[in-house]
């Protein structure tokens, strides 16, 4: 039991991160709705961020802001480098979401639906008539 707590349970951050990754991945793969896929993608990305932040955390540490009092009291700082990386990754993630949403909106205008299977059906109907190849301004 002690082994369990020390080896498995004490690393709960990582377990939850993996769990969230799986949930997000399920959302991306199994859901038909395009917005649901985007939500799944967001969860997937935050799970990876959680992993990174857990890497930088120090037990009994404090936020990496330089302050005289904190140094005198002898606190440890959390590693700030993963934080900076994740800031950049959050920028990337919000940009991805924005591009994906604009694609979804344009697809809704073209096909009138945001379910992937219906879009595939409609676009393959266009395939046979050669409709889809034409450019629509």
């Amino acid at each position, binding site marked *: 039991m002690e082994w369990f707590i020390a080896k498995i349970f004490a690393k709960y951050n990582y377990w939850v991160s993996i769990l969230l990754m799986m949930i997000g991945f399920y959302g991306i793969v199994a859901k038909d709705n395009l917005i649901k896929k985007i939500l799944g993608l967001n969860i997937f990305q935050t799970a990876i961020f959680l992993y990174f932040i857990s890497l930088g955390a120090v037990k009994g540490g404090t936020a990496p802001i330089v302050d005289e009092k904190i140094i005198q009291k002898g606190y440890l700082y959390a590693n*700030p480098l993963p*934080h900076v990386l994740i*800031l950049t990754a959050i920028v990337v993630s919000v940009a991805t*979401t924005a591009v994906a949403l604009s694609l979804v909106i344009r697809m809704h205008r073209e096909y009138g639906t945001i379910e992937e299977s219906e879009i595939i059906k409609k676009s393959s109907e266009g395939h046979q008539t050669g409709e889809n190849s034409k450019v629509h301004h």
Partner: protein
Amino acid sequence: MIIPIDLILLLFVVILAITVIRLKDLLSAVILLGAYSFLMALIWVELQSVDVGFTEAAVGAGATTAFLIAAIARTTRWEKE
């Protein structure tokens, strides 16, 4: 036994994530995703990264939710079976 606060937060986060994926109403799913992001921000503050927590609260809970709601307003609210 004292249960660490981040364990409770993580539990909530997992529940919220499952609910977000399972809900058929996209608008509620998006709002719950905002709550999820906010709890995530709390976890990150708890893990000593104030900066990322702040960013996630501003971006994940704020901007992304606004984008998603705007997109839902232009498309449909209900996911089909």
